[in-house]
């Protein structure tokens, strides 16, 4: 075919245009690709921690933005600002209710509108340390008086990245009225073997009952597993990040849970979902080894058995062993990109270590007339069994849960750091644990399988 001069010119123009478009696209890709994080070829990406110092100014001035979860706790913290301003009138606290889980990561990465302080789950502190101030210097005067478990969960590579706020001791909640009817004395339950025996006795009294809670949600079951492990002073990984799932404490815990299942003593239900509430209120489920925040259930969710529940220290794994472990908890963190990190420290120091502050948080207030009773302070001088900050709980038969929880918390061993990949491990350990509780895996298989998956997918990829 012969090419006409017109066609040839048009083709050339088309070719030029296409070439220009490709070049422009390539330029765009190059420019856009250059934006973003620096790419290196090796080495450690973690930034060396910046250590925060306390402000020298005696009457500091400025504004701080503080993020808290929405809900009742936000209202509690909000009410403390007035007390804070009595001491620091020059500091304006801009208090914001934020969905921290969904907003914090993006905010820290982009560095835009970064708050001065954030209320954060202990399990998440480790994953944000590159963005946070190391608080070891400002916390130094208080460290020896903070619950060791809380120091451990906020410690990463030797730095402390959160102001340890609350401590959530594990307790054994039990239905006192039901146990009394069955002739069971809860004071006799000192070890987990005792608990098994009591559960069997209760089942004889009430056939069909499944007295012990066996958590059916993967995340919460892993959290509960860590509470049990905390009693041994261990956790999924050591301070260097090495996995320690394949160890005697985990063998013992998993075997005990498997025994509860095999003996038909466990109620399989998700924490306070309808099945759980039904079993609790019907008297079929009478033992609940859980964090102190289970006391929310008799106060707000249970109806038929409201007033029948009590709390006692967890059983020990061996006679004389620790009678509590930590389950959950939160701390205050201060981002490196905060505008006024030193003022944020003053705010958190007030809430955590000063009597006016922690009394305002835990004591009776407009939101909780009896005080905030779903956790206790991690600062030992604030957690005095003889000086309760919150009142006895009517929905728990007027029990002084403060005293029970504070005394139990003193038994929680340290040495149980939370690895930064803890939440991601739920897909492996949490899921395998559920399989075991459904009878399709043995404790050893859980340890082998979850251990291998966590090592491959999390430890080695960090």
């Amino acid at each position, binding site marked *: 075919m012969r090419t006409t001069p017109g066609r040839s010119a048009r083709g050339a123009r088309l070719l030029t245009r296409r070439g220009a478009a490709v070049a422009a696209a390539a330029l765009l890709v190059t420019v856009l690709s250059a934006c973003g994080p620096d790419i290196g070829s090796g080495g450690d*990406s973690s930034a060396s921690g910046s250590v925060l110092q306390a402000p020298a100014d005696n009457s500091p001035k400025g504004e701080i933005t503080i993020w808290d979860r929405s809900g009742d706790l936000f209202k509690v913290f909000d009410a403390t600002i007035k007390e804070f301003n009595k001491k620091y009138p020059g500091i304006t606290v801009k208090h914001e209710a934020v969905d921290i889980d969904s907003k914090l990561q993006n905010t820290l990465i982009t560095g835009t509108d970064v708050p001065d302080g954030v209320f954060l789950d202990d399990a998440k502190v480790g994953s944000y340390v590159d963005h946070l101030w190391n608080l070891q210097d400002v916390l130094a005067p208080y460290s020896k008086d903070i619950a060791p478990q809380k120091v451990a969960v906020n410690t990463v590579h030797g730095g402390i990245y959160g102001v340890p706020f609350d401590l959530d001791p594990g307790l054994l909640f039990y239905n006192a009225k039901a146990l009394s009817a069955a002739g069971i004395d809860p004071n006799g339950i000192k070890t987990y073997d005792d608990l098994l025996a009591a559960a069997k006795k209760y089942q004889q009294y009430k056939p069909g009952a499944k007295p012990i809670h066996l958590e059916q949600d993967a995340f919460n079951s892993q959290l509960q597993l860590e509470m049990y492990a905390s009693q041994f002073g261990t956790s999924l990984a050591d301070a260097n990040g090495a996995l320690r799932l394949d160890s005697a404490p985990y063998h013992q815990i998993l075997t005990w849970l498997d025994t509860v299942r095999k003996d038909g003593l466990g109620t399989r239900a998700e924490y306070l979902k309808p099945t759980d509430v039904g079993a609790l209120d019907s008297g079929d489920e009478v033992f609940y080894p859980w964090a102190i925040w289970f006391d929310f259930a008799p106060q707000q969710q249970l109806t038929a058995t409201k007033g029948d529940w009590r709390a006692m220290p967890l059983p020990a794994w061996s006679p004389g062993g620790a009678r509590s472990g930590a389950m959950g908890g939160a701390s205050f963190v201060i981002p490196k990109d905060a505008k006024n990190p030193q003022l944020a420290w003053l705010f958190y120091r007030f809430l955590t270590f000063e009597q006016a502050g922690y009394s305002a948080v835990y004591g009776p207030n407009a939101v909780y007339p009896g005080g905030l009773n779903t956790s206790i302070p991690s600062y030992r001088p604030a957690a005095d069994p003889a000086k309760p900050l919150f009142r006895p709980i009517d929905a728990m038969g007027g029990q002084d849960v403060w005293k029970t929880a504070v005394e139990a918390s003193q038994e929680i061993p340290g040495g149980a750091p939370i690895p*930064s990949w803890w939440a991601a491990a739920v897909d492996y350990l949490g899921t395998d644990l559920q399989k075991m509780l459904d009878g399709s895996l043995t404790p050893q298989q859980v340890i082998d399988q979850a251990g291998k998956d966590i090592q491959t997918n999390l430890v080695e990829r960090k």
Partner: protein
Amino acid sequence: MTTRPVPVRAVKVFRDEQRAEPATTAAPRARRTLPWRRRLAPYAFVLPFVAVFLAFSVYPLFFTLRLSFTDWHGAGAAHWVGLGNYRYLLTNDAFWASLGNSGVLWLLIVPVQLVLAVIVAVLLGAIKRLRGFYRVTFVVPFVTPLVAVAQIWIVLFDQNYGPVNTVLGALGLPQVGWLVDSMWAKPTLALLFLWKTTGFVVLIVLSGLQQIDGGLYEAASLDGAGRLRQLWSITVPLLRRSLMFCVVLQTLAVFQMFVEPYVVTGGGPYTSTTTAGLFLFKHINSGDLGTGAANSFLLVIVVMALSLLFVRLLRAED
């Protein structure tokens, strides 16, 4: 007013004349002589869109692409890992399981939804009284906040105290672990998705129905075709484009499904409802941004392949 049909041949001649026009005619010359302001005007008009598109679509796209070749965790320097993240995902059972879960959900949702939508749309088209009321009724679930619906689902389908099992029990049927049994969790989630989004699909199908010439039904009726025959031979074929649009749209939605499993099942039991969207979220939420970025690109490839397949099927039918 009636319009005289234009003969096909006349249209062809006109098109041929247009094509035959030499390239060096007055038109390009006229363009060259336009004042520069007039020549720039079209570009100025599209500039706002282009700027927004570059900032919020193209830039994130390339940023993510670049991220997918690194081990960046949101802070510090990112290390180049080449195809490491892709290799990791493609050899990871959990990644394939998440795609499999989404695939099963697709099978449980999309075909059922299309059949339901056609039936409901046809019925809505036929209804004379309270038509507006029924249309609104079907759309209400679509505008109801998903998280609220998900919470209701948790209560409705509770194994021991949910109304659904209560009804089954009253009928002498066995109790089902809707949300705690890995066999039933997917169908229960699919049901939630169907309830929530079928109204939207009905709207699309309804608009497609309104494009069908009523004369076709009259002619078919005169030829003796019954209602079912008309549905099968006229309605469904002429709705093909609307239906294919719905298929592509819902394929995207199913493979990106996140809130439903996140709220209702948390991806369980045993990750049986960890969809591709939820699996991707887990990487990002745990700060593994490089793997998350690679996962999102793999997901894009899967969804694009499926969409292209459906479009090809449609073209083949045409």
